[in-house]
Structure formats: structure tokens, C-alpha cells
């Protein structure tokens, strides 16, 4: 059976969806991701959908589910690279993707994840930042 590859990069998991997903593939991605979050103790999941030409309500629900599931596993999900036509269509369809963080591209998505994780660990990082300031 086909699988969407999931890459681990530091504290994050990266997924690039390069094909239009049929339902079973989307569902297996959902469960694979949750298992990977558990095994790798990842703090963030980045899903790149720049090659996806259609997001219907089923696909939207899968993205929402992934975000909710990772959330209760203490990881953030950010969806990046949505094509403009897909964004317009989603709004008219009435799909809000609530609970899903989005960013324009992979780079901005990584920044967002790093910032959110940084905020969580703000207490422990504070002293380092202060030292950096002194060095400047």
C-alpha cells in the first residue's frame, strides 16, 4: 500500500503531500503521523500542501483531525503552501480549518513552529537570551 513519507528534522516532523490523496491514503497519513509524534516525541508537525490542487471537506477534516490529535499529544501542526485558488475555494465551501495553524510557505511555517516551541520553553531560555543581549 502507498504511504506518504514523514521526515524527522530535530523536534519536527515534515510531510510534503505531492499527490492528490485518495481517502485511504489520507487516513493512513493521519494514523502514521500520530504514531510518529508518539515515537519521536516531536513537538511540531509541518504539512506542505503546495502540490495539492484540491482540498475538499473530507481532506479539510483530515487536516483538522491531525491538528487536534497532535495538539493533545503536545505537538503543534502547521499547514503550509496552500494555493490561492484552494484558499478561495475553501472559504466559499465554508471550511474554516479551525485549530489548524497555517503559514504561507515552508520557511515561514518552520519559523512559526520554532517560535511556538520557543514560547513554551520561554522560562528556561530566558537566561540564554539575556546573555546574548550582553554579548551584543
Amino acid at each position, binding site marked *: 500500500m502507498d504511504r506518504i513519507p514523514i521526515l524527522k528534522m530535530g523536534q519536527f516532523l515534515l510531510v510534503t503531500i505531492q499527490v*492528490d490523496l*485518495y*481517502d*485511504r491514503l489520507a487516513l493512513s497519513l493521519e494514523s502514521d503521523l500520530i504514531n510518529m509524534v508518539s515515537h519521536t516525541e516531536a513537538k511540531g508537525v509541518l504539512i506542505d500542501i503546495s502540490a495539492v*490542487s*484540491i*482540498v*475538499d*471537506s*473530507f481532506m*479539510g*477534516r483530515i487536516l483538522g483531525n491531525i491538528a487536534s490529535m497532535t495538539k493533545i499529544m503536545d505537538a503543534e501542526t502547521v499547514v503550509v503552501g496552500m*494555493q*490561492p*485558488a*484552494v484558499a*478561495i*475555494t475553501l472559504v*466559499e*465551501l*465554508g*471550511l474554516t480549518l479551525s485549530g489548524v495553524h497555517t503559514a504561507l510557505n515552508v520557511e515561514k511555517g518552520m519559523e512559526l513552529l520554532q517560535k511556538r516551541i520557543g514560547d513554551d520553553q520561554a522560562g528556561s531560555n530566558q537566561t540564554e537570551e539575556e546573555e546574548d543581549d550582553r554579548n551584543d
Partner: protein
Amino acid sequence: MTKESMQITKEQDVILFRNRVKEFATKIGMSILNQTKLITAASELVRNMLKYANGGTVLLEVISKERTTGIKLTFSDKGPGIADIKQAMQDGFSTGKSLGLGLPGAKRLVNEFDIKSELGKGTTVTIIRWKNGI
């Protein structure tokens, strides 16, 4: 290639069908945005057909009106039918634990939308997206 009928019986047919709709829309020069709206609406309807009626038939047609062309899709199934179409057309209503966006969402994405259903006989949904229609 102005008219074609496709049988939809399994999940994998959805992708094939969407690709076929895209070929039709590309052929008449439909913009990417209108293509995306049409294919998304078609995806919702074909999914409904599989879920509630175990599949059915879709007729794809290139049609013309005045000086414009468009794509007309007719989804026919022999499923249980819809008891209350008015209710089914409301946002958020679903008998299948989904988001309830399929029918009303698809309607918003196309220029013309028609639904006929008879209990025990089946449902027919017809949508039209004009090439340059808003």
C-alpha cells in the same frame, strides 16, 4: 470529447474522475480558480454518491450558452434518496457524521445547481460552472 459518462463504484474512482473533470475544464480554457471550484464541488458530490448510495454514474458535458461555454456534470445514483432536501441543503446538517458542507458548499462553488431526489429510487444532482462565470 464533449460528452462522457463515468461509473463511480469505488474510492479510487474519485481521483480518476477529478482528473477527467480537470481535462474537460482545461480544454475549454477555464481559469484555475473556476477549475478548482468546479472540481472541489464535483469531489463533494461524488463522495456523497459513494457514501450514501454506494456509487453511481456521472455524465460530463461541455455545454454552450450565448457566447460562453461551461461544464455540466450530472450525478445520478440509485441510492436511498434524500428525505428532506431543504434540510440536506443547510450548512452543518449531516446524517453521516461529516461536516455537513457537501451539498450547500458545492452549491456555493458553482453557477447552477439542481437536485432531485425520490425516496427509495435515488438522487440526481446537476451542476454547471461557466468558463468565465462569477
